[in-house]
Structures are given as C-alpha cells and as structure tokens.
C-alpha cells in the first residue's frame, strides 16, 4: 500500500484579496477554496481577521506566507513562526506554504523573493530549516518555486533538480507556480516542459496561475494581468503531467471585480476537469 504524502485535493481556488471581501460574503462564488496571504493577517484584530474568519466559515482556506525566508542565513524568526502558528490554530487552513528563496539578511527584510544558488550546500541548508519549521508547526509545508531574473555562477544543478532535492531531503510538499516556471524559463532560456518533467509529482500539492509583464527580452512576474495564453498552455501540460492538483489564480495589482476573475476561474476549472475526466478513462 502506498501512503499519499499530500493533503486532500481542494479543487479550484482563488487568492483572497481585500477588494473582494464584501462580494464574496454577499454572493458566495462557485469556488472551492481561497488562499490568504499569511502576513496580511498577522495583525492583532479588526477588519482583516474579521473577514478572513467570515470567508473561512464558508470556504476552505490555505495560508500562503511571503517572509519565512526559509533559504535565508539569518536565524529562523521564531517570533514570526509563533504568530503563524497562532493564526493556523485560529483559521485551521487546509495547508500552509511559503517560497523557496530568501527574503533578507542581516536583520533587514527586502520584502522580495530573492533567488538561491542551486548548490548542494543550499539544498542541505534549506532542507534543514524546512524540517525545523515543519517540526514546529507539526505538519508538512509547501514550498513554492519563485520567478527569477538572475542565476548564479556557483549553481551546480537546474532549478527543478534543486526544488526536487530540497523537497525530498526536507520531506515537504511543492507549490508549483506555473507562471513562475514560464517567467523563469523565458529569463533563463530553459524548456518549461523539462522543468515539469523534472519535478517529483508525488509531492506537488498546489499550483498557482498568474499574469506577468513581457518586456520582450525578459519577463517580470507582476500578477497585474489576466493569465496569458502561454501560461494556460503550460498549465494544460502540467495537468497532463501531474493530474488533478488544487490550483488557483493570483492577482495582486489592477485587481478587477470578482466576476471578471471568475471567468478565469472557470477556464481553469475546464482545464482541470478535462484532465480529471481523462484520468478516469
């Protein structure tokens, strides 16, 4: 008997943004779950937590962090982790995630997802820290591949080999961001299908889809546009490779009304369900 590493499948989701709080509560949309940015709710009280609890009362929620800095070399921030743990106990998310990156050093937070060198040293360092975090939170976490704009001379392996090695050594799960693969593939000239093929499928718990800005010779991950066609096509390939994986759309700027985003949600559902039907043939 094989024991699944992953959490139960949630279906089709959307990033929870304050612009949509009231619409979600007034006319609950046909969405299976919402992803909330952890840091937005590490506040003492008031509207953010009120609305998160209201949404949680109606939907499954997952928490997505942006400042764990699990690849950082400053000590893990236990005060931050205690706050995350308290939020987890309050909200009871289906799972929690953060990024495979560092966000600062020397006590300064850059509030950005900064790339790691793909080295054996970094694999061991990051995996050890993920294990510490998982021990503290008492659960497997998901780590997400980030968009990157530079690579290091010191790297010894591909990004997907690095992601896979970290996930195996840490025994954690993967949030595979399809847009980030597309963006990084364009910026570094690798084949995104090779990336998909190289990721350990049994650890992929969630996907992200998003839009970006195309500057011709490079692409920047901005989350301010609808999901563009090349990312939809790569998502179709991901669905073929990984089967049904909980997937959601991230929109962080130029945020349209909920009903506009729902058109993208429906397109995502069609692609995901097509794969599910194919899997049952």
């Amino acid at each position: 008997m094989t024991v699944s590493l992953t959490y139960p499948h949630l279906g089709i989701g959307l990033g929870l943004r304050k612009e949509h709080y009231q619409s979600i509560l007034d006319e609950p949309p046909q969405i299976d779950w919402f992803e909330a940015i952890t840091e937005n709710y590490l506040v003492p009280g008031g509207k953010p937590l009120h609305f998160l609890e209201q949404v949680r009362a109606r939907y499954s929620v997952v928490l997505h962090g942006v400042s764990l800095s699990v690849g950082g070399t400053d000590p893990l921030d236990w005060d931050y982790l205690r706050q995350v743990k308290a939020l987890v106990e309050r909200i009871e998310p289906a799972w929690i995630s953060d990024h495979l990156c560092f966000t600062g050093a020397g006590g300064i937070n850059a509030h950005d997802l900064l790339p790691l060198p793909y080295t054996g040293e970094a694999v061991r360092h990051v995996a050890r820290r993920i294990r510490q975090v998982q021990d503290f939170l008492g659960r497997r976490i998901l780590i997400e591949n980030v968009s990157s704009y530079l690579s290091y001379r010191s790297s010894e392996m591909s990004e997907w080999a690095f992601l896979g090695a970290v996930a195996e050594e840490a025994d954690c799960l993967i949030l595979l961001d399809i847009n980030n693969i597309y963006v990084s593939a364009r910026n570094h000239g690798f084949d995104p299908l090779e990336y998909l093929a190289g990721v350990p499928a049994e650890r992929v718990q969630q996907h992200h889809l998003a839009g970006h800005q195309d500057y011709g010779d490079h692409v920047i991950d901005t989350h301010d546009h609808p999901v563009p066609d090349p990312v939809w096509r790569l998502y179709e390939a991901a669905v073929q490779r990984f089967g049904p994986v909980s997937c959601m759309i991230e929109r962080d700027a130029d945020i349209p009304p909920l009903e506009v985003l729902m058109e993208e949600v429906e397109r995502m559902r069609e692609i995901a369900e097509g794969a599910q039907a194919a899997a049952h043939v």
Partner: protein
Amino acid sequence: MSELAALQGRFMRWLLQGDPELAADVADDGRLPLQTRLEVYRNAYGLRLAEALADSYPAVHTLLGDARFDALARSYIEAHPSTYRSIRWFGDRLAAYLAERAPWCEQPILAEMAAFEWALRDAFDAADAAPLARADLAALPPQAWAGLRLDFHPSVQRLDLQWNTVQLWQAIDDGREPVAPERGPYPVGWVIWRRELRTWFRSLEVDEAWALDRMRAGAPFAEVCAGLVEWIDEAYVPERAAALMARWLIDGKVIGAHA
C-alpha cells in the same frame, strides 16, 4: 561565514546600497545584459517599499505630489530599511523622520499628517475588545467611584495637532481640493479609535484631553476629578467628570472598569 551567507550579504548590499560586488556572482548567459538582471531586483525593492509607504500615507502622498513623495520614499527607505516580516509595519517611523529631516521639516504639517495616518492604521487593525455598557458602570456602588480605574480599547490613540491636519485629511480623503494648511493658535487634542470595524476620530476639549490621558495612564477617577479644577469651577466638576465618562462609554472606548 558560509558561502551562502556571504552571497546573501552581497545581494542585500546591492539592494540597499547599490554595491556592485554582486555582479561577480551572477552568470552571464548572453541572453540579457547582466546589469538588467541586477536592476530588476533593485528597482523592485525600491518600488515595493515606496508603494507600501504610499499605501499607508495617502494624504502625505497627495500633499507632496508624486515626485516629492518619491524623493521622500527613497530617502526614508535608505534611512530605515524594513526590519519587519510584514510590510504592514514598514514606515512606522515616517512621522519622526518628517519632523526631523530637511526639507520636509520645513512643512510641519507633513509630520502631523503622517502621525495621523499611522494612528488610523493602528486603530484599523488593533486588537478586538468588547466595549463596556453604560449599565455596567451604573451598577457600581457610590463609594466605588473614587478609586475607579478604566481599561480602554486597544485601538485608542491620542494626538495633539497644531495644524488643521484632520480637516485637510478629510478633504483629501473625500477627493476634494485640499484646504490650505493653517497653524492654529494652540495644539488641539484628538482621539482616534475603532468601534467594531469602523474607525472614528474626534477633537477633544483641553480638559477632556487631559482627563483621558490621565485615565489611560491608570489614574483613579477621584484624582482626575481633582485635576479638573484647573479648568472648571469646583462646583461643576462632578457633572463634567460624569459627562466625560458617559461620552467615553457611548464612544465605545472603555472596555473595563475596576476599583
């Protein structure tokens, strides 16, 4: 120090100070100029923090306009890089920065506006607490009043403002043409707080500002009543003190009372 820590230190020095040492670490694949790759990160760093400041301080932004606000943001980001996990807290020292640094200190309403906007933000997501009902206090025996101390809602903030800062903020918030900054003859006390999910603010008369500050500092009711004679004829003090107390209760600022 590990290789990894050294590399991350060089990355941060590039972001914070523009130290180009990081360039030697970056692979040059000929696809994109190396400098462009580096600049993507440095630009994103500055933009993200500047956006966070603009988000926290919309009225300061309006008063300065885009170009001058951008100059302020750059200067502040360099002076006080973020040490917080959540970007929500970045910018916490802007009011003090505006009060001290030229050229901004030459326009003192800027520092006051920043202090007011930060207080609104703090009230917005301060801890929740249930307000005390007036009936709860009415049930107190008369002899308990002298030693009565109050607990205030965690969202309560006090500011003394010398300028027409709040009037100006309201004009900006309503999207009206900002009124001209005007310095008043004396500072006016303001209180900012949240009741359930809604943030409120109002000006205070000088005796109320003093009484509120004393009660928030933990002084007993009798001491505050005695102090009110500074402004009021002794015969009217009990009436005035009772009226202030009632007002704070109606506002929803009081969450506990104990003798």
